[in-house]
């Protein structure tokens, strides 16, 4: 991890080299996501609620998923752009260094201007919780934290899994967008509002449901099942599988001769 933090410092230094563009991007990133929220608000002013979920409940769910996504986008950008590392031959360089490949990949790229998204997500999260009029106790705070961590873990695992596959396909996979952007679009809402098979898919295949649905019911006080509360821990299984896939494929990888 010392390596990652050292590299983080260097990425900050790089951003400082291009002061104006960094500031503009920082602000732009902040506004990019606002449009999403406006749509939700417009939707609710028309319909009042979606399958029993109110505006602030949806906003909170939305911000938790967005937060997990944004944290990955800022700090683990190297993994997102991993296919570039393979294509431009940077991967060979990583192989001649005595450190784990994953740490080196993560250290290779950070997108600091997108921290504005993280700030925004946290803001909306706090705003929604205040408006939700919930009784917060210690367990609920823990569940909320678990949901956030689970959300980070899921997006990280998807990126890792896709990076593992890009050893073979070399070209970046559009299927990644299907799971990250597409999945994100769906997961921003509690999955219960969708059809049954979608719920099953996002519980057992890509476990978004373990983050934004089961524990969320507990958090909102609609369900007392303790398993529901600690469901986000299940995402660790997904992470484990992704790690194994990544490890196996990086061992199999053969670089080209030129």
């Amino acid at each position: 991890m010392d390596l990652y933090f050292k590299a983080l410092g260097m990425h900050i230094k790089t951003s400082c080299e291009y002061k104006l563009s960094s500031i503009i991007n920082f602000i732009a990133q902040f506004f990019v996501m606002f449009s999403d929220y406006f749509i939700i608000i417009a939707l609710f002013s028309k319909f009042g609620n979606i399958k029993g979920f109110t505006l602030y409940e949806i906003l909170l769910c939305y911000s938790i998923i967005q937060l997990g996504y944004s944290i990955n986008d800022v700090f683990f950008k190297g993994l997102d752009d991993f296919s570039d590392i393979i294509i431009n031959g940077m991967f060979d360089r990583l192989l001649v260094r005595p450190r784990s490949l994953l740490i080196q990949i993560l250290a290779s790229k950070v997108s600091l201007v997108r921290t504005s998204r993280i700030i925004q997500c946290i803001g909306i999260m706090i705003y929604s919780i205040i408006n939700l009029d919930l009784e917060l106790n210690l367990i609920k705070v823990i569940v909320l934290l678990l949901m956030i961590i689970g959300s980070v873990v899921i997006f990280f695992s998807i990126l890792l899994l896709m990076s593992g596959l890009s050893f073979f396909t070399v070209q970046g996979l559009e299927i990644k967008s299907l799971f990250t952007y597409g999945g994100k679009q769906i997961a921003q809402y509690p999955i219960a509002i969708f059809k049954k098979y979608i719920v099953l898919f996002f519980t057992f295949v890509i476990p978004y449901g373990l983050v934004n649905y089961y524990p969320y019911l507990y958090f909102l006080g609609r369900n007392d099942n303790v398993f529901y509360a600690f469901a986000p821990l299940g995402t660790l299984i997904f992470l484990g599988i992704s790690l194994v896939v990544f490890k196996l494929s990086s061992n199999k990888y053969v670089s080209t001769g030129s």
Partner: protein
Amino acid sequence: MSFIDVNHLSKTFKVAKRNSGLKAALKSFVNRKYVSIDAVKDVSFKINKGEIVGYIGPNGAGKSTTIKMLCGILKPDSGSISINHMSPFEERKKFVKDIGVVFGQRSQLWWDIPAEDTFDLLKVIYKIDDKEYLETKNKLVEMLDIKDVIKMPVRQLSLGQRMRCEIAASLLHKPSILFLDEPTIGLDAVSKEKVRNFIIEINKKYKTTVILTSHDMNDIEALANRIILIGRGSKLFDGTLNDLKAKFGNCRKVTIITNDTLKKFNKKGVCKRTKTDIGYEFIIDINLISISSFVNYVGEYVDISDIDIDSDNIDNLIIKLYQEYNI
């Protein structure tokens, strides 16, 4: 056992075969045919500690593939590599601590910030302790004359300055083997000289083993006391430069300036002929044809307005060598 011991090394690549055009591209998408290419075929050699070895061959001969296998980036299909009693591919993390790699065409320096920052990152990567790091860094900076250079953002450096920083970066952890893949590519004469002198110096001072690939034969001439020539994946020659010259050093490059056109001819001893804007270039073998009889011969057909004879140049030697082995 030698320091570097390579035995019967082979590597084959599968390359998708396709013809040009959209139709062929679509066809290959559905039914792709693969061709096996033997990038490296049964190559063996031994290198002792402290040697500087020039690893040469034309483009696509298998140089980079061999270097990649020696660095542990690529896994050999068959054969074995033992470097300092380690197998590069099997014990990657342990092995790479002891090697330095410079890819002339690929930078490892961070583009937007000073090279010194990359050095600091490498200190963390290789877990070098503070005192040792400072000592090595100062020494390298002094030897390569880059004291002020490393404080500037890399994007503002000249190619020569950048390459010197690049070399310093790959030596911070004091590796006992240095791989240089075209270290002087695109450099001017002065920078080349600086890089060469530095390589000789560290080799003398620290007994660093250097394996060097280059297309610049002057690099090889200045640095390598031993040459391994590879062509079409096979080792063709292994020995000193003097051996090589004794064997093939009878070539001369003859440049003939003329306005006339010369029709094709076959004459013993003429190895290569190229048409230039102002005339022709020949490589001739003086054991088979003397300069005077060659000039007389050509003079019968064209009006020679000027002539230049380039003696014992290693480039010519290599061209001749490539031709000899038909690569």
